[in-house]
């Protein structure tokens, strides 16, 4: 419950229509796309301008009430569940594209704009905004920036951080700062832009962003390679990259995932194959033709059962759309789907794939795997039932092993979904205690009251680090 006077002050800022503390409204902002996490806020507010955001922050600071900025709530790390209550800050009224600058190749947007709208608007000007998370139809730019989201085109084009040039941010003390700008170079002080990207709403509230656009690739080709086992598919990924071909997209999908996706999309996916790679290359026509040819040859040499090129743009689109539905389609199989985000150097991909397989057997849990193989980023997804506590315990152990393995291989516990509340207990596994402390110091300096999205990134208690038994000793 918020103090009455505080509610009154908030209403004075945004008006009666845009602040509520009704039970129903608080309830529907208690969750995001992460299974098993839920906590209700004490109020929900919808500012229309940076000035309103500043005033809201000042009021919250005065009453020591947490603020949870929220885009579309599609994150997968319990990043927007209001763990410590407080108010949820929505950007549904700050969702305009402010400017497209064709001379500097930038687009300036408010945080509530949907990713797809940015992509479409860029295309309208014959330009290209590459980051394309599978959730792009629903996710907001504010969310993408704060999770540093990746997508299907990450391998060649990078992730959200590579396209954020400047930000307008409201800090926890109510001040507004502007970082970066429409500048190709800028070394005036620390790179605050990069620091804020991926900060998960814990360091500041983003109220405007200037994004980088690139020229639109002239041509694009898509193909599907089928394999009779997972490791061969994974080895092929490393082989392609080792041969100095960088495709736009290189996605991995295993058989159970393929089956689930097919039962939703019904486009005739090859559900008999044990694994498939979805490969896409874009660019100049000649380059695309050459790279596609090379990759086809490499797939065949490595032992692909078949490699087929999409016959039309529609077919290619259907394939990538189907891939984007993988996570949710898997939910058909069991009541609860828990997905992970382990990432390793690309050369270690096959090793991670076989480890996931063994782990699934060892703990007797069903794990399906798909992901951005070209980025070394896999989403092992566990089909389970959160009501079965004994099974859930096995699931947790299996994932702990996978995290440990990923770190051991020189990888990370999360490649693109963020830490949030869910992975906070594992953060030190990747960073070490000193690493976590350094980050905590930054958080304390910018938000001494712990107002902004408290309870995320930093856990009260870390998980005890697992040391995996060596293969021989098992």
């Amino acid at each position: 419950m918020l103090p009455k006077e505080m509610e009154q002050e908030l209403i004075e800022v945004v008006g009666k229509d845009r602040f509520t503390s009704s039970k129903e409204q608080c309830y529907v902002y208690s969750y995001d796309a992460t299974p098993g996490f839920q906590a209700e806020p004490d109020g929900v507010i919808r500012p229309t301008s940076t000035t309103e955001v500043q005033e809201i922050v000042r009021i919250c600071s005065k009453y020591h009430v947490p603020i949870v900025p929220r885009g579309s709530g599609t994150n997968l790390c319990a990043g927007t569940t209001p763990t410590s209550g407080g108010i949820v800050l929505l950007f549904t009224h700050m969702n305009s594209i402010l400017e497209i600058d064709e001379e500097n190749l930038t687009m300036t947007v408010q945080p509530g704009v949907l990713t797809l709208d940015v992509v479409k608007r860029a295309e309208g000007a014959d330009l290209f905004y590459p980051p394309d998370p599978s959730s792009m139809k629903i996710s907001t730019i504010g969310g993408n920036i704060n999770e540093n989201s990746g997508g299907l085109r990450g391998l060649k084009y990078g992730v959200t951080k590579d396209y954020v040039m400047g930000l307008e941010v409201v800090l926890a003390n109510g001040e507004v700062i502007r970082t970066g700008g429409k500048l190709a170079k800028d070394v005036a002080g620390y790179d605050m832009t990069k620091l804020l990207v991926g900060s998960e709403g814990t360091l500041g509230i983003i109220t405007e962003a200037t994004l980088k656009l690139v020229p639109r690739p002239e041509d694009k080709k898509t193909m599907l390679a089928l394999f009779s086992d997972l490791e061969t598919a994974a080895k092929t990924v490393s082989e392609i990259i080792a041969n100095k071909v960088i495709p736009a997209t290189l996605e991995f999908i295993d058989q159970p995932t393929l089956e689930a996706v097919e039962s939703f999309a019904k486009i005739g996916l090859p559900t008999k194959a044990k694994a498939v790679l979805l490969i896409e290359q874009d660019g100049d026509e000649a380059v695309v033709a050459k790279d596609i040819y090379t990759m086809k040859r490499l797939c065949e040499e490595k032992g692909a059962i078949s490699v087929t090129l999409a016959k039309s743009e529609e077919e290619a689109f259907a394939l990538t759309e189907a891939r984007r539905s993988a996570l949710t389609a898997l939910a058909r199989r069991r009541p609860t789907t828990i997905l992970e985000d382990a990432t390793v150097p690309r050369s270690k991909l096959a090793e991670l794939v076989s480890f996931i397989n063994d782990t699934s057997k060892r703990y007797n849990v069903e794990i399906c795997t798909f992901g951005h193989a070209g980025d070394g980023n896999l989403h092992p997804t566990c089909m389970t039932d959160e009501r079965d506590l004994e099974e859930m315990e096995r699931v947790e152990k299996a994932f702990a092993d996978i995290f440990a393995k990923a770190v051991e291989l020189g990888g990370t516990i999360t490649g693109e979904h963020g830490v949030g509340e869910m992975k906070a207990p594992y953060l030190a596994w990747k960073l070490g205690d000193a690493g976590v402390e350094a980050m905590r110091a930054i958080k304390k300096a910018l938000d001494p009251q712990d107002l902004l999205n408290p309870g995320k990134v930093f856990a009260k208690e870390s998980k005890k680090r697992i040391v995996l038994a060596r293969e021989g000793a098992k």
Partner: protein
Amino acid sequence: MTTDLQKSFKEQMDYDELMNCTRCGFCLPSCPTYINSGQNEASSPRGRIALMKGVVEGRIEPDEKVEQQLNECLGCRACEPVCPSGVQYGHLLEQARTVINEHKSYSLPVKMLRKATFNYLFMSSKRMHRVHQLRWLYEKTLAQKLVRASKLLTLFPGEVETMERVVPKTVPPKRLNEWEEVEKGFGKQTKRVAFFNGCLMGTMFYETNQSTRLLLKTAGCEIVTPKKQECCGALHAHGGETEKAIQLAKRNIEAFENLDVDAVISNAGGCGAGLKDYPFLLRKEADWEKRAKAFSDKVTDISTLLASLDLGPLELSDEVVTYQPSCHLENVMKEKGNVEKLLRKVNGIEYVAMVDKDKCCGSAGIYNLVQPKMAMRILDQKMVDVAETNASVIVTSNPGCLLQMKAGIERERLTDSVRAVHIVDLLADAIRKRDSEEGDAHAVRNRH
């Protein structure tokens, strides 16, 4: 009270289906109420499912606001085809509304109105005919002129007044029976089909039913129209009157199941979807589920059948035509693209697709009467999309959508330049035109 309601929620809602929602949010952009409420999560499928689940789990009370959110859903089910987990949202909504309805103490006038509509009128096709007779008298006598002149209907809530103006002119009651139980097709016989008359289609939209018969016969279909059939019960099911819907479903299955036909044809997306949902409706009725499935497997929309048959050359005068699909035809019957295919077959007219055509028009059964504010907000946006196509004809595939589009035309004061028609009436016009021209040509030939 509340605890009772909560208990019923727990007992009657399908919890596994609620668990099936992973909250990924893929449904959000497909939901008209989410978009038109300024992206209010509670007005989205994901939010509504969360509310239902929260009530079942005892985390939230089913208070007025929760109920309001469930009522404000159009039931267009656009969220279902886009859901990768395949959550049966429409079924969950129906279960929730049934529970709420069972516990509801309506005010006396509302109770009487609900009783009259659900328990009396729509339970019997005979009574529908009697009402038709009354409507005919209303139009024939001075009554209609008086009512319109007095602006009496503007006192009613919602869009009653607009709706009164846009419903089709009543056909003389004695014409309502101008069909035989079995009618042969013209020329070579292609299919034997049963025709689902529909309660409103058989009365208020009688002309559209006659057009449907003409098209079926032109395509060489033998038509069986069983006299014993009733209203499909969709209105009851959506309104939380499940028991009544079940009764109607059983009577319809009995009327149709032994006809030995290739398909059961419906010309209203809403009714067709209602019939398609019989296996779900009868899931708890011993021995009925299988019969329901056999029946519903045969249910097909007229557009799907016609798109696969030959109607001969079709031509109409030069006009731009656009199409507002019936949500239930596309999202529940899952029959998509056939109306467009038929439109492209008609020479002379130009079909221009409108943006967001797969978004509900806001008609949604009786939604536009009970939730006029949201319905009109949605309609106004729809009319902007229509205007962008420059169409002078808006084609529909369901009577509710047809009336809604007519209401939209009235609201925009476009009655002189734009009209709305049911796809079968448009096609039948082309055939009647062809027949009369052929008739003329025939006469000319005979004279020589």
